[in-house]
């Protein structure tokens, strides 16, 4: 059987067809696995496959098949094809298992598939359509007004922030409009640690939701705008508390394909640092003193955008382990084999029930460790996991690491 590229009009997909065609359909990506003297891991890692079961939904195999089927003209676009495409969270667990030359292009392929759906007459999930139709106006996907972006920031703190600073704290939409607790904990933490930072009123959505749902044209505006901010405020770097913003600003804005989108939006060149990396660095240099302890058993959820996508696994763990009284216990599925919270890739907005069901699976896994706290460094994961805790009436508590740190640290 030959799969000849026929539909060159699907540009986003056609331009990576040479890589898509490297998929052998071996199905390695359908199950997480590692075996060796110290490893003995086997678990379902694909939330989409776990929910919808059929091959099309399991791991990258199904999506690669769909891309090949569409490009070779074997099948036509349909609402079901859109469903297969949009229920993939883009968590990247499958990528860890793939061993052929499609591997590095898988995340790009998921987004290219989504991008093509906007040109077809197919059922894009209503929730995604809704925020997409207003994001240009609001500069955030939460249907909130841009003017209210800094409402979370008490005037008393705002007054103390400099106009120009070494770092811009890039708050992100979720912490700005929903998980304000995290934004607040972060500014307080940064102030306690005497970091030279500011918060800017003209921060727009980093464009993560747009890129993850393949809306490249709209994303362009956002990226071009945000790119100018460091120079405008005399800053040398962005600090983020959001794993999604971190991935987008450091990878999508800056790296060449297949990881980033410099082919579409040009190359930005600034430093991006996650709060947790900053804290880790200061702990290593002996610049942080703990004034209290956190006497709880804690399990850490790896956000896909920080873990698998940006390969930051150790920093949060190193910080947690340095906190007096805190006992860190790992979930079976962790680090590169973590199980997604179910929020990303447009899924939380597009398929709320499936999204929360996925988060519930994760919270159950967290419960099984005996921990009383789930911690994480992503407001979006925070939100989904926290909703799952409520849905389950679980006794677990959701806390961002900044929330754990802020009350008990000071700069030496």
């Amino acid at each position: 059987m030959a799969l000849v590229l026929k539909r060159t009009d699907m540009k986003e997909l056609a331009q990576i067809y040479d890589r898509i065609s490297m998929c052998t359909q071996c199905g390695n990506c359908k199950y997480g696995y590692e075996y060796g003297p110290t490893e003995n891991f086997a678990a379902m890692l694909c939330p989409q496959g776990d929910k919808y079961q059929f091959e099309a939904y399991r791991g990258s195999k199904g999506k690669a098949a769909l891309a090949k089927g569409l490009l070779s003209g074997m099948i036509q676009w349909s609402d079901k094809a859109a469903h297969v495409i949009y229920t993939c969270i883009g968590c990247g667990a499958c990528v860890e298992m793939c061993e052929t030359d499609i591997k590095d292009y898988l995340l790009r392929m998921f987004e290219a598939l989504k991008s093509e759906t906007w040109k077809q007459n197919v059922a894009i999930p209503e929730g995604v359509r809704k925020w997409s139709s207003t994001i240009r106006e609001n500069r955030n996907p939460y249907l909130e007004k841009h003017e209210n972006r800094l409402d979370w920031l008490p005037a008393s703190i705002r007054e103390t922030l400099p106009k120009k600073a070494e770092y811009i704290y890039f708050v992100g939409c979720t912490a700005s409009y929903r998980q304000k607790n995290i934004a607040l904990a972060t500014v307080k933490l940064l102030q306690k640690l005497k970091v030279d930072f500011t918060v800017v009123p003209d921060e727009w959505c980093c464009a993560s939701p747009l890129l993850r749902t393949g809306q490249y044209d709209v994303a362009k505006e956002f990226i071009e705008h945000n790119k100018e901010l460091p120079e405008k405020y005399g800053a040398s770097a962005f600090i983020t508390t959001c794993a999604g913003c971190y991935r987008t600003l450091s990878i999508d804005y800056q790296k060449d394909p297949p990881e980033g989108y410099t082919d579409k939006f040009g190359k930005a060149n600034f430093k991006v640092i996650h709060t947790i990396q900053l804290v880790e660095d200061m702990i290593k240099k002996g610049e942080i003193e703990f004034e209290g302890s956190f006497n709880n058993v804690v399990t850490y959820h790896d956000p896909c955008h920080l873990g698998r996508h940006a390969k930051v696994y150790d920093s949060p763990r190193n910080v947690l382990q340095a906190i007096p009284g805190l006992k860190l216990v790992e979930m079976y599925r962790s680090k590169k084999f973590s199980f997604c919270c179910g929020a990303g890739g447009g899924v939380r907005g597009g398929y709320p029930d499936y999204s929360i069901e996925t988060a519930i699976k994760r919270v159950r896994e967290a419960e099984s460790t005996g921990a009383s706290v789930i911690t994480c460094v992503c407001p979006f994961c925070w939100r989904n996991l926290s909703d799952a805790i409520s849905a389950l009436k679980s006794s677990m508590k959701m806390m961002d690491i900044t929330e754990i740190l802020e009350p008990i640290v000071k700069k030496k």
Partner: protein
Amino acid sequence: MARGNKEVLAKLEQIVGPDYVSNEEAVLLPYSWDLTWAEPRMPDYVVMPKTVTEIQRILRLANHLRIPVIPYVNATNIGGLCIPEEGGIVMDLKRMDRIIKIDPETCYAIIEPGVSHAQLSATLKATNPQWEGYEFSKGFEFGWGVHPASASVLAMAINHGIGHLNGRIGINSQLISSMEVVLPTGEVVKLGSCAFSDSWHSFLPLPRMDGLFVGWMGTTGIVTKLGIWIFPIRPYKDVLTIAAETAHDMTRYMVHWRHYSLCDEVTAVSWWLAQIPIPYPYQEKPKDAPEWFSYTVISGWSEEELEYKRKMWKKVVEEERARGTKLIDFEYPPEAKRGRTELPSRIVGSTKNYSKSCGGGLAWPGTFAPCKSWPILYEKWKEIYIRHNLSPAVRFTDFQGAHYGMLRLMTPFDKRDPDSVRRAKEAMVECVRVGIPLGMLPYKPPVEYVNELNAAADAGYVYLMAKIKDMLDPNNIMNPGKLGIR
């Protein structure tokens, strides 16, 4: 786009629930092809049963309406065996993924079709309570192959799968101890000791009726539970390696070594298969590189036992050299050793070794052949492959005893290019054609190989096969087209 018809869809939904049946093209597409050259064929429905009763009801419905049913777990069989030649219902068995029992005393496990190699190996490795403190406490193992870890253990075993213990205890279909099957007409039968008690330990001394479902590629029924023998993991292992200039010398050494029955496995690979990935298209071997590389895995309960096996192996090598067999010393890189001793492995258990960058195609003439025909067939296959601009990436693996073994030619090809697909297919079919008169038999054979087999077969063999098939599956609903006789 939807396929099939609404009435059948509704009936299937009644059986398994609406979430586990689909007739939508976007969902059916991955069931229409596999890694091989086989032409894609769309099923009309896919259904994912969870219970034996659901399977019975689906088969009764399919019989009533004369709709083909194709058993499917992951379709990694490299033979197009799950491609619905005549459309119909793909029965995806992945939801039946229970490890029902592990009996550490009698050393067997009972598994459902959806249990993956990853799942079973991890569970077996962690199982061994009764031997705590003994050498046995490293857990259990089964014969692990080098396939994707998501592949089904049951589907592998019932299709004569080849695992890492094949040299010591035989191929995986020899390790099946009992089974439960739903016949094409919907009845449930138990075969082996489990037909008489709760013990799933053996078929013997009963008539081997399991043979009606082993090696039949899903054409005679749905195996719903399988008893398999499991073995305590031996704590001491080593990999010994040697190279040779010719297939003839390599075979002589392998057969000599096998006579002692001291290894878990002895395998040789041609230079082309030793490259990662296999060169595509054909690339000439550097003049100074040996043509054959082999490894043998030895294991034991103590360092002394291992040392004894090493000594015997060295003796074989020395004796062969004295007889004029040209053997060349070479060392496996540590990563490759790990891949051979820690199975099922991420290192070899993937397509990266075979078809990493060449365009998605992978197939093989995968065969069982008497050892003495290996060198003869290798030379023939090499000529065929070079003529088709393909690398002769051949593997010999000796099975238990020095009678016969695997002779396989792993072949990557470029699915973007119809000419590449055609050349690969032609070369492979030609290899099978020249091999059959020399005792070679393809395993998990694609339709094209089956046709070659049937053309060469004893008439009585084909007659009985057809008779059995008709008896078990009167309406020919089970994976039709795969046996080349109906």
